[in-house]
């Protein structure tokens, strides 16, 4: 293969073809005005040629007084591509629900045009606005201008990470609590925990308004708050009939997919045995005009989800089966503080809270954070007989007398 000229990116050019919007086109659109983008293209083309990345481990860079929010990044090819020798990203806390006005967007663009690559991720996987690539000297000025525009940094390192949430009550009929308000409130309440890493490892919150979990909280957040309800699903029988007329087969499409088979249909009336409904959302999802969650709403709190490194991936597990979620969220925040206290004291370095629970045992963990054990917290009770009974009778105990008295 011929060595490509200075500006030639024959491999990347292939990625401008095809119907899906192209990230290469995005980078190229900046390359004429921004040298970082030009060198990014160059280094990336080389990655494509050599089938490997050329970024080094990040060093510790950041803005004054903050321990997180910036990911340091340096190139192995600093000589070849000096403009990406530093290429740090800033993580910027998104507004809850990722709503923007065009002015807010333009404000962000202006800051980033002046101080960085002009490339962003809308958004990062945790939920932040990601400003992709700048040099160390620009970090502090970027930050100053961002705060002028009302934005602040998100998390990185061993801190509380940027909480995020589904669109919730802003545009969804199924939201069982105000995901946006809670997300904003927690973010504001825990500013210190967000900006000054003092935990054993990262801690993520994600708020989903209902069990559909449109923010993947149960897979990706140390604390997952999933909206649900306690009372009966509201049914509009007339609308049910319309769905049936429209082709929905209640037996096949609804009943057979209901995890507890607690829904039935006699051709006239849809009946739900609400005591056995596990709030999976399926029937509601399938017939949104006919069915709605109940009105006694709140959330299930699950703890401990994380990616696999290094003990294996975890989904969140039930900590509180049902809790009312209402400002000022005192009960929830107290719970969070108790969890952080215990984790802070007993968590090992780089041990997520889910791993800690597995290590000390859920039972002990509950005791430490003062939460009663409930059968809702387990898929099933233990199968092995290795119980750590904590007490035993000693000779001479009252109990002995009582037991022998017979």
């Amino acid at each position, binding site marked *: 293969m011929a060595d490509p000229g200075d500006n030639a990116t024959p491999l990347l050019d292939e990625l401008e073809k095809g119907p899906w919007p192209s990230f290469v086109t995005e980078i190229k659109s900046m390359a004429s005005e921004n040298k970082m983008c030009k060198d990014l293209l160059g280094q990336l083309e080389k990655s494509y040629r050599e089938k490997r990345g050329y970024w080094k481990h990040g060093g510790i860079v950041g803005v004054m007084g903050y321990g997180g929010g910036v990911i340091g990044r340096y190139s192995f090819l600093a000589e070849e591509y000096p403009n990406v020798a530093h290429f740090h990203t800033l993580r910027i806390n998104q507004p809850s629900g990722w709503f923007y006005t065009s002015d807010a967007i333009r404000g962000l663009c202006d800051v980033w045009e002046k101080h960085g690559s002009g490339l962003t991720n809308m958004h990062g996987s945790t939920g932040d606005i990601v400003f992709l690539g700048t040099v160390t000297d620009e970090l502090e000025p970027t930050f100053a201008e961002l705060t002028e525009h009302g934005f602040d940094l998100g998390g990185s390192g061993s801190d509380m990470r940027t909480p995020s949430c589904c669109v919730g009550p802003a545009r969804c009929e199924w939201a069982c609590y105000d995901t946006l308000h809670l997300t904003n409130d927690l973010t504001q309440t825990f500013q210190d925990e967000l900006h000054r890493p003092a935990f054993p490892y990262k801690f993520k919150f994600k708020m989903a308004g209902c069990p559909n979990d449109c923010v993947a909280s149960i897979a990706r957040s140390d604390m997952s708050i999933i909206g649900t309800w306690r009372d009966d699903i509201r049914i509009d029988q007339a609308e049910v009939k319309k769905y049936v007329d429209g082709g929905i087969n209640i037996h096949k499409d609804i009943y057979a997919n209901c995890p507890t088979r607690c829904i039935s249909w006699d051709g006239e009336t849809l009946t739900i045995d609400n005591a056995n*409904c596990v709030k999976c959302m399926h029937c509601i999802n399938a017939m949104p005009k006919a069915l709605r969650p109940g009105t006694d709403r709140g959330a299930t709190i699950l703890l401990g989800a994380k990616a696999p490194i290094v003990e294996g991936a975890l989904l969140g597990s*039930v900590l509180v*089966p049902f809790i009312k979620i209402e400002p000022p969220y005192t009960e929830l925040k107290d719970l969070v503080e108790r969890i952080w206290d215990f984790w802070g004291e007993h968590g090992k370095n780089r041990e997520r809270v889910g791993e800690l629970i*597995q290590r000390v045992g*859920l039972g002990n963990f509950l005791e430490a954070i003062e939460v009663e054990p409930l059968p809702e917290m387990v898929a099933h009770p233990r*199968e092995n007989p290795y119980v750590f009974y904590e007490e035993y*009778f000693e000779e001479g105990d009252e109990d002995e007398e009582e037991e022998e008295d017979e």
Partner: protein
Amino acid sequence: MVTDRKTDIGPPNYEQFLPPIVKANYGKWKYHEVLKPGVMVHVGESGDKLFTVRAASPRLLSITKLRAFADLADKYCGGHLRFTSRNNVEFLLTDQANIDPLIADLKKMNHPVGGIGNSISNIVHTQGWVHCHSAATDASGVVKCVMDDLHEYFTEMKLPGKLRVALACCLNMCGAVHCSDIAILGVHRRPPKVDHGKLNKLCEIPSVVSSCPTAAIRPTTVDGKPSVEVDEDLCMFCANCFSVCPSMSISDPLNDGVSIWVGGKVSNARVEPMFSKLAIPYLPNNPPRWPEVVGAVRKIVEVWAEGAHKYERMGEFIARIGWPRFFKLTGIEFTKEHIDDFKHAGLTYKRSAQLRHV
């Protein structure tokens, strides 16, 4: 002399013990029907009919009783009988007219007939205080008490499906306790007491130390003698150290007792085989009638009998209604002990928002 000894002859070939009707229809049975409690008929493709009468057995049988069974077999069955995998005795008849007289004779001998179809069959169990050094409770005695109480479910067929109860007197679980609808399991609850005087003579210290799965055992020296010490907080009473070394005595009358497990099964019918799960961590050993155990088992049986769908085994029933409701219906308290904390504990936590909220 040694040359004269017969060895390695293996068991007698079963063929010599099969009734003629079985030989004739071997592998050619067509269907069966349950005629009444404890009685079924198997019909061959030939049209031949083989009647089976199943009677309860305490499993621990004297030769007196065995001879009496042999006499019954002669009287009614052309000298043929068998035992089942749950230790009942089965009489194999070709003459339907013999069924009732046989049952009458069995009744006289205090051997109720039943256990077939939707019933509770015999409790599979182990040695207990009758023969094992390891027992945390008696076996035969508890079984007797529980079956005295449940015998109506053996002699009648009024249950939704089969219910298999098993008992093991210690965690070694000599039986299918770990996969039973209801399992009664003897448990120790006090860490082993070390006999420092004898340990070094009877046991190898490194094996004792390594026998402990939780690393609760450490070498030490007591009164100048090498021995071991137990970190009591780490002990979960598995008795593996005692299996390896008699000087690690773990039996303790004050603390030994019984735990109750539910929802296991073995068959592949409908749902896959399942382990039993902890229902009640501890009930006291209260001989001779173990009233707490008897009461707890009955309560669980009744909750199931009342709520289960046709065919539904205990574990399927609980899976359908959910564990929270099982605890509510049985009145059993859910405690820390119920939450798994062994190797795969994390996989038993509830990792979804699919919950009932009532």
